């Protein structure tokens, strides 16, 4: 186990340097004026130019200069210093204000996925090929197939603007109720996948030998399902949900942008819209790290939960 964790950690470090190098190389290096590339189509003032040149050591040239600047970027990232956005706000401050909102939204989405997805998945798995099973399969296919950029604006329009069941936008410092509709929209994708995963896993385990043994020694059906089958069936579901935590935190760009929720994704959305290069790079770098770490945790969790899996 220890060796597996060490190996996985080394792999993550490799992936970390790989992805940050890509992010960095694409954003800053290459032909043309890197500062203008950062700013996009907006004009750059002399003060901004001087600040960026000094911050990223743009006066050093050649391959050595590139790696010097890359190293600089990495050490700043690791120290949590993300610099300033083009509007002059510290990106660290922006993120500090945004994270709690994003985490709350992600938790709501995750709760929706667990409560509805896993329950319905277990029921569908037990009653395979029933009407309930087929209906949920079709529904999940619909949810999986409809992109968020369709689901989010339509939910906002019908439930928020037209029928006014939910507040259409969240605004600054949103409460639980304002986050509920975005949470459901965000969680619907995880809900559908969790449901299908639970269903397949339960249905497969119900045919396993140990279930037959449990039945033949006279255990009641309720106990067979709730103790024997569930325990084994939920392993892939838990790992999937673990990956989803990382995805939900980083993947809420569209949902947060549409519903005006001042989280991390919303700031990235705004950064893209306003062509704010430093803000986009800063947030993307942090999100990549969050994503890598959550994947690492899930892989280790997987090995801990399922003793059959050995990576030696």
């Amino acid at each position, binding site marked *: 186990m220890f060796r597996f964790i060490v190996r996985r950690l080394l*792999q993550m470090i*490799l*992936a970390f340097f*790989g*992805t940050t190098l*890509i*992010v960095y190389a*694409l*954003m800053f290096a*290459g032909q043309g004026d890197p500062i203008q*590339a950062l700013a*996009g*189509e907006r004009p750059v003032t002399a003060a901004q130019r001087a600040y960026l040149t000094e911050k990223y050591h743009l006066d050093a040239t050649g391959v050595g200069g590139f790696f010097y600047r890359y190293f600089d970027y990495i050490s700043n990232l690791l120290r949590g210093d993300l610099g300033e956005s083009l509007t002059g706000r510290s990106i660290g401050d922006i993120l500090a204000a945004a994270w709690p909102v994003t985490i709350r939204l992600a938790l709501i989405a995750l709760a929706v996925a667990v409560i509805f997805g896993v329950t319905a998945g277990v029921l569908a798995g037990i009653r395979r090929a029933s009407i309930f099973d087929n209906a949920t399969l*079709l529904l999940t*296919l*619909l949810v*999986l*197939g*409809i*992109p*968020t*950029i*369709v689901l989010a*604006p*339509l939910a*906002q*329009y019908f439930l928020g*603007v*037209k029928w006014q069941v939910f507040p259409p936008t969240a605004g600054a410092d949103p409460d639980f109720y304002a986050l509920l509709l975005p949470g459901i929209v965000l969680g619907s*994708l995880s809900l559908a*996948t969790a449901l*299908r*995963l639970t269903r*397949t896993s339960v249905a497969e385990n119900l045919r396993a030998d140990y279930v037959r043994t449990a039945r033949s020694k006279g255990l009641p059906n309720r106990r067979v399902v709730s103790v024997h089958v569930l325990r084994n069936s939920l392993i*892939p579901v838990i*790992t*999937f949900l673990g*990956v989803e935590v990382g*995805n939900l935190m*980083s*993947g809420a*760009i*569209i949902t947060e*942008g*549409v519903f005006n929720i001042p989280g991390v994704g919303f700031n*990235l*959305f705004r950064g*893209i*819209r306003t062509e704010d*290069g430093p803000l*986009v*790079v800063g947030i*993307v770098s942090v*999100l*990549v790290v969050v*994503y*890598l770490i959550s*994947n690492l945790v899930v892989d280790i969790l997987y090995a801990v939960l399922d003793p059959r899996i050995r990576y030696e």
Partner: protein
Amino acid sequence: MSDFETVAASENQAARRGPSGEPGTPNQVGRPRKPRSLAGDAWRDLRRKPIFWISLLLVLLVTAMAAVPGLFTSNDPADCVLSRQHAAPSGGAIFGYDFQGCDTYARAVHGARASLLVGALSALFTGLIALVVGMLAGYFGGWVDAVLSRVIDIVLGIPLLLAAIVLLKRIGSDSATVRVAAVIFVLAVLGWTTAARVVRSSVITAREQDYVAAARMLGAGNGRIMWRHILPNALAPAIVVLTIALGSFIAAEATLSFLGIGLREPTISWGIEINNGRVHMRESATPLVVPSTFLALTVLAFIMLGDAIRDAFDPKLR
């Protein structure tokens, strides 16, 4: 989701034989007592599924829309007059006009071309990369497999949307061709990993088959074995995965265009239309609802088609 897809897609390879892989198999003879092949079984299964026919019909409809938009609307999508802002339906514009006074329906119809082009070409390039990488890794094994599998792991670890944002922000050009090419390139470079894993595992299964050993004993080289004997086995599962991927590439293109970093005006894309419609949805909702419906139905059609084919080929699910 990708984990789930990989698991489900690789599940059905263990039990699958290549439908046309073995030379000399009397496929076309059609003797009456011949046992049905897996493909024949799958076809019988598919024929009875309404979802298969509905999604196939939708796919054909969208393809026709992309190829000949004139069949569906005679209005010019670029003919926008502000005096018609949010006007009611009239004269062929069956869904009325949007904020800029353009025909909502005509724009949605003409949006099919960009979406389908990006989706199909990304899926094609994804398939090519996946076949080459998966074939090399699966066939040669050893250190080639080790290196390529680590590359797959790393690329799989990059979140698609974030990487696409970074990559596409570098494209300064507003030329339609450049942007379409850039979006295709980005989706292909980031999206090939799932298919490559599927190809790799089916190649590993096929490599151990007796007919491969027989071909080798007859003196066939690596190239011939890969091309003639293993590729046909790896192709079918890859095509199923790519059908589903095509749907998600269309969704990804629309998402990027929605964010303003994918395709841009004057290219007509459902993502751009949805974003424009969203801004003015309080005044009129049809410019939001119409392209949304087109996009959702197209993505759904491809995903359901792939899903139905995969289910039909999976004997475990019968």
